[in-house]
Structure formats: structure tokens, C-alpha cells
């Protein structure tokens, strides 16, 4: 038996009690991990949204609180295209509707000849015609979720559409939505002559950043430009909120987990008062007693971390089976996330073990040996 073996034996004595504490900590770790995986995915997919296709940067109205509320007059498109260095400008109107059991379905209105420019790749069927108000393209994910095929008729809101093709952009948000003619979406949303975003391609030999500056100066602060949604202030604000939530959950997990471990270990130390007295009497130094108690609490936390990783990953995989979620949330695995969750578990073990270890060193062998 080694010192480590003794620690494991001590933990095994109260399997149920320690198991429940371990489960509690692992739920905390799983939550932190799952939140992080989804947040990473969310950030990444939004970051990709505007980078798609041949676009160099996008334009939105400066006063809009979010991309969805950005409103640019369609007439400005031509003005943008005439600016020095601009090769092409494509407007798109974003709308959110309830469709195919999804209350937050993204439909995007664009000109038919801009589909390729925006990176929309038809994988089945064909693109909608320029003058076909009833034709629609469904994203690969949304078609899969709704079990819709090329040739089917679908109803969006009160309007009926004919599915003419299935597309893929590689972006989770877009692939979970639909593309239709700009005019159709404008009419349907009562936003005639309006677009949400303008995607801009810069001419060869021009620097995107310089062209973006010229554009902003030309429209005297009416517009902002971004290379991805990740650059917009609103996005940063939402990410900030999500990060705050994620940290709050982490701190809660440390607090609750730490107190749980502390409770279990303090109980264990009190129950083993006599034993600790014996160990001190046979020559164990305080330092070794501390190592034993801390070793037990850290072991609980580290096993909980491993269990939490498994539970967290399975939980995310389970969540992705839900049709509404599928396609929108793509977990993005990063080493840092696991390191952070592991670090949090370690902190739980350290914090939870401190007080009981301190109590254990206060046990004097003479009093302990009188303890029955």
C-alpha cells in the first residue's frame, strides 16, 4: 500500500457519500464545458456569417441595435458600387419567421444573381429564378429537419413557397435558414426598398480596410462596416453577456462544488479523529496529514472533472438531436476549454480541502486517543 493507495482506500470507505459529492462537482464541470462548447460554436458561426462567399466586408446601419434591425435604403447600393475600389455590392434582407417547427427561422432575401457571390452553393435542384416570387431555397439543415425535398410546397407565415433547391454555405445559421428573392422578402416583411446588410467586394489592387474607410467617410457615419459579425459592437456586447454568464456559472460551480467537497471532507475528518490521532502518534507529521486530506479532496475533484467531461460532451451531443437546435449550434472543441474546466475542478478540490485539512492538523493525538 502506498500513500496514494491509502487515499483511495479512505475515499472508498464512503463510496455513496463521496460518489454523490463527486457527481455534484461533475455536473458543475459538465455545465461549464457544455456552455463553453456551445459558446465557442456560436462565436465561430457568427464570425463566419459575413466572411462567406467572395465578400470582403459588410455594411450595416450605424444606429441599428443588432444586424436584424439594420435598415439600408436599396438605392444606396448603387452609390456604394460607384465608390472608388468597390467591385460589387450585394444587398440582403434578413427576416425571422416561424417555420418548420422553428420559431426563429432565418429567411434571407437576395437577388438571384448574388447567390454565388454570397457563397450559397446549390447541392440539389436549382437556384430560384430572378422573377419567381414563389420559389425558395432551403438550407441543408432546415430541409433535413423539416424532411422537405426539392419540389415540395412549404408555407412560411401566410405565404406559400415552392422549394426549388437545397443549398449549403457551411455556416450553421445560414444552413438552418432559407434564401428567396429579395423583392419577395421585402414585400412579405413590408420592407420595400430596404436591405439589412450590404456585402461588398473590393476591386483587385485595393485594400479592403481603405475602401471601408472611404465608404464610411462618404456616408458621414450613417454606416458601419465589418469583416464579420464578430466585429460588431452588438455582437461583442452579446458575447460579453454570454461570457459573464459563463463565468458566473463557473464561479457558482466552484462555490457550490467547493462547499460540497468541504462538507464531505470535514465530516470525514471528524469521523476519523481517532485515526488521525493514531497516525500522529505513530509519527506522521502535520504535513502528511494535510497531504492526505487534500489528496482525498483533490482526487474527488479530478475524478469529477473526468466524469464531467464525459457528461458535458454527451449532453451537448444529446442537445444536438433536438431538431430546433440541430444545425444552429455546432460545438467547437478547444483545448483551452478543457484546461479551464479542469482548472476549475482543481480549484474546487483545493478550496474544498483547505478547511478540513486545517481541522485535521488541529487534532492533538492525546485528545484524539480519548475520542471513541
Amino acid at each position, binding site marked *: 500500500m502506498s500513500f496514494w493507495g*491509502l487515499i483511495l482506500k479512505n475515499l472508498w470507505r464512503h463510496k455513496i457519500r463521496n460518489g454523490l459529492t463527486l457527481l455534484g462537482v461533475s455536473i458543475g464541470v459538465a455545465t461549464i464545458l457544455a456552455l463553453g462548447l456551445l459558446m465557442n460554436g456560436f462565436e465561430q458561426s457568427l464570425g463566419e456569417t459575413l466572411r462567406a462567399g467572395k465578400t470582403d466586408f459588410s455594411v450595416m446601419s450605424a444606429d441599428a441595435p443588432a444586424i436584424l434591425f439594420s435598415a439600408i435604403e436599396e438605392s444606396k447600393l448603387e452609390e456604394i458600387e460607384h465608390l472608388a475600389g468597390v467591385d460589387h455590392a450585394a444587398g440582403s434582407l434578413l427576416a425571422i419567421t416561424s417555420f418548420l417547427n422553428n420559431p426563429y427561422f432565418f429567411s434571407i432575401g437576395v437577388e438571384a444573381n448574388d447567390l454565388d457571390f454570397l457563397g450559397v452553393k446549390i447541392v440539389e435542384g436549382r437556384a430560384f429564378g430572378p422573377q419567381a416570387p414563389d420559389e425558395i431555397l432551403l438550407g441543408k439543415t432546415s430541409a433535413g429537419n423539416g424532411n422537405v425535398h426539392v419540389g415540395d410546397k412549404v408555407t412560411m407565415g401566410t405565404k406559400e413557397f415552392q422549394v426549388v433547391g437545397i443549398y449549403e454555405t457551411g455556416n450553421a445559421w445560414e444552413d438552418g435558414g432559407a434564401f428567396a428573392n429579395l423583392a419577395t422578402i421585402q414585400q412579405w416583411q413590408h420592407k420595400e426598398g430596404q436591405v439589412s446588410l450590404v456585402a461588398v467586394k473590393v476591386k483587385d489592387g485595393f485594400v479592403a480596410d481603405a475602401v471601408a474607410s472611404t465608404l464610411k467617410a462618404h456616408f458621414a457615419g450613417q454606416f458601419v462596416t465589418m469583416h464579420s459579425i464578430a466585429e460588431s459592437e452588438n455582437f461583442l456586447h452579446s458575447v460579453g453577456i454570454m461570457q459573464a454568464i459563463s463565468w458566473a456559472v463557473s464561479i457558482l460551480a466552484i462555490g457550490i462544488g467547493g462547499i460540497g467537497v468541504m462538507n464531505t471532507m470535514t465530516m470525514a475528518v471528524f469521523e476519523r479523529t481517532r485515526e488521525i490521532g493514531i497516525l500522529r502518534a505513530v*509519527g506522521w507529521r*502535520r504535513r502528511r496529514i494535510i497531504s492526505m486530506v487534500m489528496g482525498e479532496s483533490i482526487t474527488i475533484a479530478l475524478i469529477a472533472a473526468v466524469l464531467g467531461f464525459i457528461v458535458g460532451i454527451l449532453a451537448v451531443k444529446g442537445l444536438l438531436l433536438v431538431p430546433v437546435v440541430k444545425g444552429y449550434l455546432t460545438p467547437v472543441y478547444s483545448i483551452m476549454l478543457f484546461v479551464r474546466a479542469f482548472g476549475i475542478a482543481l480549484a474546487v478540490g483545493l478550496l474544498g480541502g483547505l478547511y478540513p485539512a486545517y481541522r485535521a492538523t488541529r487534532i492533538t493525538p492525546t485528545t484524539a486517543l480519548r475520542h*471513541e
Partner: protein
Amino acid sequence: MSDPRKAEPLIQARNLTKHYEKGQTHALRGVNLAIKAGEFVAIRGPSGSGKSTLLNMIAALDRPDSGEIRVAGQDLTKLRDGASYRAHVVGFIFQLHNLIPTLTAFENVLVPMLELKIKRKASREKAETLLHQVGLNGKADNLPPELSGGERQRVAVARALANDPQIILADEPTGSLDTSNGEQVIELLRKINREHNVTLILVTHDKEVAGIADRVIQIRDGQIVSDK
């Protein structure tokens, strides 16, 4: 040619006093004691006489309020934590619930060696030899609850020997055993005292047990009343 350190007794106590409960109880009142290496000493006295307090001081588990105690050349009153001293010099045997209940007899004997820098293989061999010595070869893998009272106390004896101590301190080692088991344990301790030249100090209130020792010190009300 005489080495002065050799002439010095292994345990030397001068004028030890100890008070408990804010000076109300006098556990020890000026105890003077010298014990040579290899002696088998029984400390006798009624409960509350101060005999366990004296034993705890020799083990550096307790400190005197005044006076001096030196063991094997070390001033015990100056030790910050007596653990290292106990790990190297002393083996301890208690009356009751002496063993870690979840560890086997073999593992219980290994416990003191975890504190010493002994190689895994060497400590395992040692634990085996010790269990053999105390007559428990077949019981190495038994947990304390599976052993009889006498067997448990023999495991405790083996554990007390694990660190090759100069002194074995036994606090009422037969207190919870029947006569026959008690005799066996005392006989074992006696044998170890002779064969290993280990100094044996045994606290008891049992006259017969004390009778086996070479020297019997009687304590009453915190003072030595007889020493023969």
C-alpha cells in the same frame, strides 16, 4: 574510555509538572525519572494518577508546564512537532481501537513506514517479517474487525516495531483483553524487549502485568511513590 553519552540514561526527566483545567488538576507534580536503554519498566497507578500523562510526555505527545525531559539526547520540550521524533525513536501501543479499521493487518504495519524514507519493497518485506514475529503470518490480509482482540493487539505490536524504535510505549495494552490474550501480548512484548534490546515502558493498573517488568514505578496524585 567511557563515552558520557552512553552513561546518560535513555530517558531523563527532571521535575516534570503538568496542570490541567486551568491549574485545578495537577496531573504531574515534580516527577524525576531516569530509564536506561533496554529496561522493561511498568508504570502503575490508579486512574487519574498521572501515569498516562507521563507516558504522553515521553512520546512528545504532551509538554510539561515546567521541568525537563530528554530522550535519546533530544530535549523534548524544544521540539516544535514531536512527529519526527516519534517516527524515528518511539513505537506506540494503545489500549483500544488501535488500528485503522479499513486497512488490513499488513497495511496497518506499513503505516508508520510511509513517513520514513523506506523503499516499497523493503517496507513490504519488513511488514511481513514483523507479522511473522508476532505470530500472525496467515492473517496479513485480514481487516481488524475480522481479528480477535488479542490478534489486533499483536498487529499493534508489529506496527510499533515497524520503525525500529529505541523505545516502545504501551498504554494499557492488555486493558481490553481477557487474561490469556493479555498474557500472550505481555509475553510478546517481553520477548521483543529481550531480543531486540528495545526499552519497554508499559502503563498499567494491573498488578500482575506490572509484576513481569524488571522495574515497577508507582504513581499516585502526580508523584512517584515507589520505584523498585
